[in-house]
Each structure stands twice: as C-alpha cells, then as structure tokens.
C-alpha cells in the first residue's frame, strides 16, 4: 500500500508527498520505491514536514478548534500537505541482492513510496555499510546523531528476541569505528537508544 509519491528525486535522496488518507512515515524509518526496471530503492526518512500546498498561501493562526475548522473552514485542512525527505542508502537489484550503496539511477518522479515492514532491518544488516554513507555524507539540514538514534532503535525493535542485543552491539561497533572512537558522541547516541 503506497503511502505517498516521489516529487523530487536524485540518486542521493528523494522527496515525497504523503497521500491524504495515509499516515506519514516516522523520522528515521525505512521506505522503499519499486522501480519499473525491477530494482527497489531503500531510503531512510531524514525529514518530515507539514506546510501549505500553495507556495503563495501561508497557514495563519485562526483561533478555532479542530472541530470548528472541519465544520466551517475545511479547506484550510485540505490545503495542508505532509512531505518527507528520504536519504537513499541501499537498493535491491533484479536478482534480489541488497547493495548498501547508492543506486545507479534515482527513483522516478511520481513513483509510489511504501513503508518498509520492521523486519527490513534484518535484510539491511551486516556489515552496516549504509551507516558509513549516513555518517560520512549526512544531509546538512538534519542532525545526523538523532537520525542514528532512530536507526539503532529500529535495528533493536526489528529483530526477534535473542538476536536483537547482538545486532545492536554489531551496529554499535561499526558506528564506533566510524566515529573514530569519539566515545562521548557514541555514548550520547547509545544513551538515547534505550
């Protein structure tokens, strides 16, 4: 079930608009775009935003309750949309193999975006090369450590009981190396995971 549609796209990231009847993806969750060529592009939601549909119209304080707005000024809700940005970190080729690197082509504009099930973290696991892309080429507009917190938390919740500790430790080790043993930063990230 698609949750939205790609409206801007590059090999590094894409932006999508969420359909009105769908729940927006959570910050730090995985989304996927199935391409016509059979590849699937995986992106990590790095930014979720709500705003006006029309650039010339800005939302203003109206001093009315949500119920009153729905009864008397429903268009102000209609003209609000939710968009999100996802950093492209992996793709699956036509043979079903996952590559934790950028895809050869960007996701198509108007392509459907779906939310990945929580188990996706089991496929996007070791050797956690996507963490390298995330740490070394972060989206400048996003606090990368908060995104890492969300990623680690998903690795934890996306695994079954005996493996989850192990998966989290492995990802933590990769992260530790990437942060060049900046223990304070690593600690601050891990503290917020659990």
């Amino acid at each position, binding site marked *: 079930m698609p949750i939205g549609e790609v409206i801007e796209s590059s090999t590094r990231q894409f932006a999508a608009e969420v359909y009105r009847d769908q729940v927006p993806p959570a910050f730090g969750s995985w989304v996927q775009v199935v391409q016509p060529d059979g590849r699937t592009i995986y992106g990590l939601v790095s930014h979720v935003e709500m705003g006006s549909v*029309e650039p*010339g*119209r800005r939302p203003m304080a109206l001093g009315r309750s949500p119920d009153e707005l*729905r*009864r*008397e*000024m*429903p*268009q102000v809700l*209609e003209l609000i949309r939710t968009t999100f940005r996802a950093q492209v970190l992996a793709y699956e080729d036509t043979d079903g193999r996952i590559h934790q690197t950028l895809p050869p082509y960007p996701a198509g504009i108007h392509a459907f975006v779906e939310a990945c099930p929580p188990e996706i973290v089991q496929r996007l696991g070791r050797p956690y090369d996507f963490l390298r892309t995330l740490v070394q080429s972060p989206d400048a507009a996003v606090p990368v450590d908060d995104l890492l917190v969300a990623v680690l938390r998903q690795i934890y919740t996306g695994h079954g009981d005996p493996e989850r500790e192990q998966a989290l430790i492995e990802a933590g080790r990769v992260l530790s190396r990437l942060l060049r043993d900046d223990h304070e930063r690593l600690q601050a990230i891990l503290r917020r995971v659990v």
Partner: protein
Amino acid sequence: MLDFVRLQQQLRGFAAYQQQQRDLLQEKLQAALDAWQQVGDVEALLEEVERARPSWLVARPLGERLQERVRVPSRPAQVTVVAADGSQIFPDRHVEPPCFLLNVGRVAFQLGTHEPVRLESIPRFCFRQEEVQALLDDRLESISLEIVSALRDEFELEALLELARAARRAERPLVALLDGTLIRWMIRRLHQRELEEQFICRYVALLEQFRRERIPVASYISMPGGAEVVNLLRVARGECTPEPPSLSLDGLADRLLFSRLLRSGERSGLFLSGSHIQRAYAEPHRIVCTYLAVPGPYGQAEIARIEFPHWVAEEDGWVDLVCAVLLKECEKGNGYPMVLAEAHEQAVIRAPEREAFYELIGRQLWRSGMPVGQSRKQVSKRRPVL
C-alpha cells in the same frame, strides 16, 4: 520603469485635492441622509420618477417603506454553499492562431458538517475556427475582451449550476454564490445586436434553470460603486426639475449612504435595479439588490451589495438565507466571503501558468510540424536583452 522624480511633482497636489473632495462628499452625504428621512410615500416617489424620466439609473424600492432595515437572522447550522469565480487568458493579438482560455474555479462546502469540501478549477480552451469566427468583432476583426468576458460569465453560471446540482443534499438548505454583478450590462458594449441578444438569452435561460430547480442564486459585490438609490433621492430632491437645488448628489455612491444607515449585520430593503439591460431579462429574472453591512477587519462594517433574481426575493426566507450565509462567510473571511475567496483562488491563473500555457500550445504545434506565429514585438517583450 517609473520616473519617481517626475511623478513626485504630480503627487503633491493629490492629498490636498482629496481633502477638498472629501469635504464636498460629506456635505452631499448629509443632504442625502436628510432626503432619505423625508421620503414618506414610496408610490408617490415612483410616480415622480415616472414623470421626471431622469437620464440616470434609478432603483425601484420593492417595499412600502424606503427606510426599511432588517436584522439578518443567524445562519442555519448546516447549509450547502457553492460558489464560482472565473478568469481567462485573453486572445493575444501577437500570437497566431487566435485562441483564448476560460477558467472557472468552483467550490462546494457542506458547512456545519464534517463532509469533504470540493475545490476545483475547470479550463475551457476555445480555438475552433467555427466558434471563434462567430465571435469576431466586425470592426476590429479580432475577438474583443468584452466577448471573452461575456463567455466567461456564462461559463461561471453554467459551472455553478452543475456543481449546485451535485452538491445538493436532501433536507439541507442550499445557496449558490458568484462574485460581481448579475446584471450583464457589459454585454451592451459588444456593439453586435444579434450576439448581444444571444448572450442575454442564454444567461437568462441559465437563471431559469436555477429557478426551476429551486436553487437560490446570488452575487456579492464588495465596495459597490453604483448610485441607483442615491439617484432615487436625487429625484426626490427635485434634481430633475427646472430649478434643481444648488447642491447635487451626483458622485455620491449608495454604499456611503448605507454605511451611515445600517449597522453591522443589518440589510436594507429590496430594490429592483434600474439598469437598462434589465428590460431584456424576462420578468422573474430581473435583478433585485439589497445592501448588507458586513463585519470587516478591525470591527469596521463594510457595505456590500447583494444581487439576486426577482424570484429569489419572492420566495419566503431566501433573501434572509442568502444574507445570513454571506454574513457568516464575511466573518470567517475577514470582511470578504470565504467561499468566494476560495473560488477565486481556484480560478486565478498565475503568471508562470500563463507562460506554461503558451509553452504547451507552442509544443503541440511544433510536434505537428507547425510553427507558432509570434510577433517580433511579443518576443522582445518576453525576453528583453541587455
């Protein structure tokens, strides 16, 4: 480019002149208010109008008392309101082949419910030789702006009717609204008698559809410029007699008069418009108006003119319903009906869209191996070089 140094010299006298004009207007307003209070017998005044045959347009009061003021009741909790507004891309003399675009924005609100709102715009691209040929102005050999405007007005009313039918809910009152006047006086500027008659005929036929389907239709005029009621007072003051009073009320608009007579939430009595084109409208569709004091920003009331066909005025409760809806809409829209503002938003064609429209025409023609004719002047205007 504007030369502000040169403009500055002309601006100096502006404020002083305006001050002078305002004082004169105040004097006229006072005289109008005096005359207003003195009118007793409306019948006698109408006879006087008949005798004097003034050259100005004179409103015809429909009530027994001229001074009637009505407090508008509160709006029904649930009501369906549909509204339409239009815009266009006029035919461009510098672009071949001749074509133009009409765009109607229309909205349907089920107010007081949680039912979804409908917001949409409908373009109509007119380019066929047959349809364009019939509209060519004989003198100019081009399609005049008036014709495009008349077609747009017709398209608005048509689109409004269609939406009103679709949005109607059983047991729920329905109001259909337009912006501007329902009096199509612009049509008389076409200078093509036959075409004018066709336009009026089709317009009145659409109003007749509204009547048959019992959909009250009305239009809203913000800051109306008319003076038909003031003109009635001019007759009462003897301005048509051989010895008119030294001060004429000429130049005083009805809205100024009513801004002193009505409090926010009140409307005037009903007046049949004296516009000449009205004679071409079949009797039940002659346009009637009322002036309504609507709440504006900063607690100031503004006078709006509400127009509707005579059959709306004759149905018990419809004028009240229309005015109640408009009052509440103005409250939400900061002095202008929210539904009409939304219809306008849907209708408006912005500059980049206009550019894209010409771009698309060009591409379509280019694909079929035909060049789009554009005068060199137009090219230079679009892409000025340094």
